């Protein structure tokens, strides 16, 4: 009696395992198929790419909501205005997609790097490339080289006093997940722990109410906040480049990356990226530099 039960146990476990294993095999075969596609996609013709995308016949582009100015305009990525929106449409055009074939989808930043299949072809959301991040997802080449900048209220002491030693004495704040926060902690190293907010908007309201003394953001965002969003705030200056850049986020080893990189290289070479930067980020060229 006992023996049969033991046998049944093992038989059932065996069945369970084979079931799982067989459910795994279709996925691996589709991976093999996508490897074949990669070889084809290296030509980067529209026909070969069109079969490789998330949704056949369109290019699905993701960003977070709210989509911040001046990277987007009016929280409406599909209007083609704002730097990142313009870049996304320009890349789509290079890949052979018409404007109406570009589908936007909302992807919260925190979810963009989750394991599992992605619901987009690429995510364009001011995401900085770092080596650690690139072990989980794939990044495109740089479409914008980033510098960090300092925003404060006009009457704040920090406006005049921001030597490296001074900077350690202020209360900073930032949005969760931003490389600006990492910049504060690793480069400015303030003695008091910086505040970390869910959204950039929360950080802005904290600056306005005096709960933090300074906010760090990339220069275009900082310029926009100080010129259009928080009255009586100023952009104190920008920090020298640390080599940081924004890249489009893809699923790890997505075959599309190579073709998108080709498209970005073309846009760089023909001056399109420079043109968009002038058009959407143009007022941000004459910003004083702070030596950290």
């Amino acid at each position: 009696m006992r023996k049969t039960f033991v046998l049944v146990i093992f038989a059932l476990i065996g069945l369970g395992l084979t079931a799982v294993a067989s459910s795994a095999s279709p996925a691996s075969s589709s991976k093999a198929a996508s490897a074949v596609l990669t070889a084809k996609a290296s030509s980067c013709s529209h026909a070969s790419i069109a079969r490789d995308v998330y949704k056949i016949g369109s290019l699905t582009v993701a960003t977070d909501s709210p989509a911040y100015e001046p990277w987007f305009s009016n929280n409406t990525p599909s209007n083609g205005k704002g730097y990142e929106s313009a870049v996304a449409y320009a890349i789509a055009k290079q890949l052979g997609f018409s404007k109406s074939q570009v589908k936007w989808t909302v992807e919260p930043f925190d979810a963009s790097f989750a394991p599992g299949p992605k619901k987009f072809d690429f995510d364009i959301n001011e995401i900085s490339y770092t080596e650690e991040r690139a072990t989980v997802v794939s990044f495109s080449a740089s479409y914008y080289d980033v510098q960090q900048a300092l925003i404060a209220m006009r009457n704040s002491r920090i406006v005049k006093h921001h030597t490296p030693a001074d900077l350690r004495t202020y209360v900073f704040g930032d949005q969760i997940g931003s490389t600006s926060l990492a910049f504060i902690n690793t480069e400015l190293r303030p003695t008091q722990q910086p505040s970390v907010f869910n959204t950039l908007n929360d950080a802005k309201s904290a600056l306005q109410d005096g709960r933090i003394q300074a906010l760090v953001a990339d220069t275009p965002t900082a310029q926009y906040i100080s010129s259009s969003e928080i009255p009586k705030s100023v952009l104190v200056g920008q920090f020298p480049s640390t080599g940081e850049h924004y890249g489009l986020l893809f699923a790890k080893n997505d075959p599309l990356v190579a073709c998108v990189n080709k498209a970005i290289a073309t846009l760089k070479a023909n001056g399109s990226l420079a043109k968009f930067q002038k058009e959407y980020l143009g007022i941000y060229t004459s910003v004083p530099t702070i030596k950290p």
Partner: protein
Amino acid sequence: MPVRGSRGGTYLDQQTLVAAGAPAPGSFEGNGRGSHLLGGQRAAAVSTVSTVVFIGGVIALFVFAPGAAAVRHTFFNPQQMKQAFLGDPSKGLYSVGKGLILNIEMFLIAEVLILFFALVIAVLRQLRNPVLFPFRMLAVVYTDVFRGVPLIIVIYGIGFGAPALYIRGVSTQSDFVYGIVALVLSYSAYVAEVYRAGINSVHQSQVAAARSLGLSQWKSLRFVVLPQAVRTVIPPLLNDFISLQKDTALVSTLGAVIEANRAAQIDSSTLFVYSSYTVAALLFLCLTIPLARFTDRLIARDVSRRMAGGATVR
């Protein structure tokens, strides 16, 4: 013959039953109902098999699923879990372990305040003196409002609202203080209702007896009703506090309180892995499971004490 409440009688009956060899109430052990439920040896074997197959299947799913390796890398990466626990300031990573100390501090301070305020509110609601009607009214409105509004909104409202008012002494408090105030406001409303349920569970005859012995209304509440009420509601109270332990994590939305969950969020978004959340989850379990077991023990002790009381009070 002693004066004995109706409960005492019931418990005595159970006592006699237990003494006579029947299983203790609520237990499936022994030779009676328990073996009927499982249906004998054969059924026991089948249940063993199904349990093994079920657990084996779940494990197999995690080990052999197509994305298992990615999930292990993202959620259960030992090196990153260690890094998340300790933090690494040179990489801008925060320590989840250090963050948990803030959770514990917030929880302990808030718990003491909640136990006090909630009792005050519950008692206010219980008072029948017509002069005190406005207070009763206030207590009802308070519980309705703060039980109905999501805690996160209360935290936002106080943490972002108070500083915007520019009132001296109010607007310059730390986020830690605002967070505790919000937790106390919200949880006091729940806990007041728990107390009230306890108070209502004490039979009217108890009050009548106390009054007939010459105790004032207040004294009968203080010395007869509340001691019985509080003892009854200790398990549900502790249940609310387990929930409070977790909800301290919501205070991090205010910015300056980098507790365990926020530290995990920062680490996660910096490195693009979720192992730091796993660390936070494990640490929260280390906090809540002991409290849950403690609650179980209190309940067991209370039951045995009441039964003993029923049998020995003469």
